[in-house]
């Protein structure tokens, strides 16, 4: 790397995510030292003690790159995303959660009330006799404290701020991170909006033997030990390889586990979940409902299966809760009358 | 045979009738909605075991309905001859349930007409309301009181023979436990219809 260049200003942030993406950065191993050489880190809450006001104090656009991981679940995350967007030249959605909502977005099947009711009420380990729920305001002797608002839905990063690049994965693999770092440092940036991953689907890299896509039963991974040489789909195991971007290095497949889709849809895929659902369903053998229904019932939890990482990027986004509740009420009335 | 009174040819002016209103009224009864599709084939008449006694055949009644002759239809004796055998209904090429149409006409007529049949059906209904079940002697007495008390004497001999054969109860059935429920049901229905 050319020494003459000014050191890059780098920010890393962790919103609604598990923290795996942070660890992935550390997984660069010795290359992390190179990063440290090339860049000044201005914010990295998981590793270094900066304050938000330090960032606020920076001039707008003075941060070169922000690697933002995690989805937007509450008002604090939104605030910081907006702040970092203002301060950064390049905003990178880092990891599946920031790109597509990731695992946290599966909560879009429920709204705030039901999540609180469950978490602070009905889970077996909860002891909460006063039924205290998180509040946004807390009066204290020192004055009123304000806490972030927990949202009804989980959002992906580009829902709330303009994103320049996407690095998918749960977490992104080190080689991809390094490719990105190199591109940023060298200034050889891809067109804005690009996703740093393969253009084709994962099957392109999968070395398993593929024969005929026809199945008579679907199985879940805990039910069988798959043949490691054969296409998992052809063994009746839902694998999102055909719809998911290549670039992860077939990490799951190498471990004899199916692709769950953390790299998100290929550029021309209609929609991550629906496309895979469509393909998987047509594999079932049979021509009438009586034969097909038992086979296809083997695909349990289609939403969780096909949108495991991409619900916040899907066409429907969140569960249509209010109306369903209304309909249930109506049904109840009818039954009662 | 006495000379039937010669009936003058009538000129019917369609504007004397509100056909749409009568059809709409019937449409609020079960199977009343497809009367308009009657194509006057006469299968109902020819399938009916009792049509030979009617002054107007069932088919003609349908045409009168479609013309809007409400008063004439309700004054006819046709519907009171229906024995609910449904022969017309299963054969009607247009899928009209004549039997239901007859029920509808009776129900409408029951509100104003008074004859042997209305008395019988009213008596029947009253007996059921009282006991929750049929009680033949009660019905016959009610019926006779409504029509001609002397007719009881005519029915007497058969009643006695039925009694002898163990085919008739003189004592009323001990009202069913749900008799109050039945009365309430009658009231509720009356209320719903009154309110409608």
């Amino acid at each position, binding site marked *: 790397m050319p020494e003459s260049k000014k050191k890059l200003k780098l920010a890393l942030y962790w919103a609604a995510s598990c923290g795996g993406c942070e660890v992935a950065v550390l997984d660069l191993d010795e290359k992390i030292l190179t990063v440290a050489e090339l860049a000044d880190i201005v914010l990295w809450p998981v590793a270094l003690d900066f304050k938000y006001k330090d960032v606020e104090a920076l001039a707008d656009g003075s941060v070169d790159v922000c690697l933002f991981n995690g989805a937007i679940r509450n008002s604090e995350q939104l605030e910081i995303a907006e702040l970092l967007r203002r301060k950064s030249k390049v905003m990178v959605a880092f990891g599946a959660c920031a790109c597509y909502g990731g695992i946290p977005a599966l909560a879009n099947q429920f709204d705030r009330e039901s999540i609180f009711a469950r978490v602070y009420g009905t889970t077996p380990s909860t002891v909460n006799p006063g039924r205290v729920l998180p509040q946004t305001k807390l009066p204290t002797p020192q004055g009123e404290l304000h806490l972030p608002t927990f949202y009804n839905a989980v959002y992906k990063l580009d829902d709330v701020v303009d994103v320049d690049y996407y690095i998918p994965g749960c977490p992104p693999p080190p080689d991809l991170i390094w490719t990105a770092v190199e591109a940023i440092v060298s200034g050889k940036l891809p067109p804005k909006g690009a996703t740093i991953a393969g253009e084709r689907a994962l099957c392109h890299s999968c070395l398993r033997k593929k024969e005929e896509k026809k199945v008579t039963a679907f199985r879940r991974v805990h039910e069988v030990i798959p043949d490691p040489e054969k296409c998992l789909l052809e063994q009746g195991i839902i694998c999102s390889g055909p719809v998911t971007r290549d670039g992860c290095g077939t990490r799951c497949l190498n471990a004899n586990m199916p692709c769950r889709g953390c790299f998100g849809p290929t550029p021309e895929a209609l929609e991550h979940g629906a496309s895979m659902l469509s393909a998987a369903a047509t594999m079932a053998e049979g021509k009438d409902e009586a034969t097909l229904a038992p086979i296809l019932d083997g695909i349990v939890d289609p939403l969780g299966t096909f949108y495991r990482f991409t619900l916040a990027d899907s066409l429907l986004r969140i569960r249509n809760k209010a*109306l369903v509740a209304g309909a249930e009420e109506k049904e109840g009335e009818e039954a009662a009358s | 045979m006495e000379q039937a009174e010669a009936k003058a040819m009538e000129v019917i002016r369609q504007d004397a009738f509100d056909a749409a209103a009568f059809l709409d009224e019937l449409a609020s009864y079960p199977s009343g909605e497809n009367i308009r599709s009657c194509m006057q084939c006469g299968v109902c008449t020819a399938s009916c075991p009792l049509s030979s006694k009617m002054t107007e055949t069932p088919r003609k009644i349908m045409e009168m309905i479609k013309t809007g002759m409400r008063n004439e239809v309700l004054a006819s004796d046709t519907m009171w001859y229906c024995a609910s055998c449904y022969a017309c209904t299963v054969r009607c090429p247009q899928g009209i349930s004549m039997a239901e149409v007859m029920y509808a006409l009776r129900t409408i007529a029951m509100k104003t007409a008074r004859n042997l049949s209305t008395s019988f059906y009213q008596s029947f209904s009253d007996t059921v309301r009282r006991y929750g079940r049929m009680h033949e002697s009660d019905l016959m007495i009610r019926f006779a009181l409504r029509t001609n008390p002397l007719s009881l004497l005519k029915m007497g001999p058969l009643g006695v023979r039925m009694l002898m054969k163990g085919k008739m109860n003189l004592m009323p059935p001990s009202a069913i436990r749900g008799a109050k429920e039945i009365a309430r049901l009658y009231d509720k229905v009356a209320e719903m219809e009154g309110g409608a």
Partner: protein
Amino acid sequence: MTENVTAKGGQGGGPAWEPKVVAIFCNWCSYTGADLAGISRLKYPAGLRIVRVMCSGRVSPAFVLKAFHEGADGVLVGGCHPGDCHYLEGNYKTLKRKLVFERLLEQFGIEKTRFRLEWISGGEGDKFARVANELIKEIEALGPLGSVAERLRQADGLSLRAEGGAGSA
């Protein structure tokens, strides 16, 4: 129930809200059947609009999601009767997809009645009109669904930059 009342609030007698139904029909059977309904002057509400594909087998579940995403209150997919597919068996593929897809829709909180797959032959203009009227009646009872953009707006009051993500390209 109260929702429907406010939503309808009839001016001029007719309902203010008219259910929007996207019908995706195969060219050979259902689209022809819908044409026949027209030739026979059968009537159905104007909210039902047909998009033509060559075969019901062409209908990706994502098309249905797209319709709901855009604010359709219901989606009707029409194909040839089993055994009658112009392309031999495209309609069987549609059936397979439907069997999984309808469960997915339920998970998204979209009532079963809002999505229907019907076999309508080119001769069944009357069946098409009946299905159309029936479906719209059922959807009227459920009330409006609203577009996803609206639903997201309602969820947290955020103004999102570009809702939709996939497929809106």
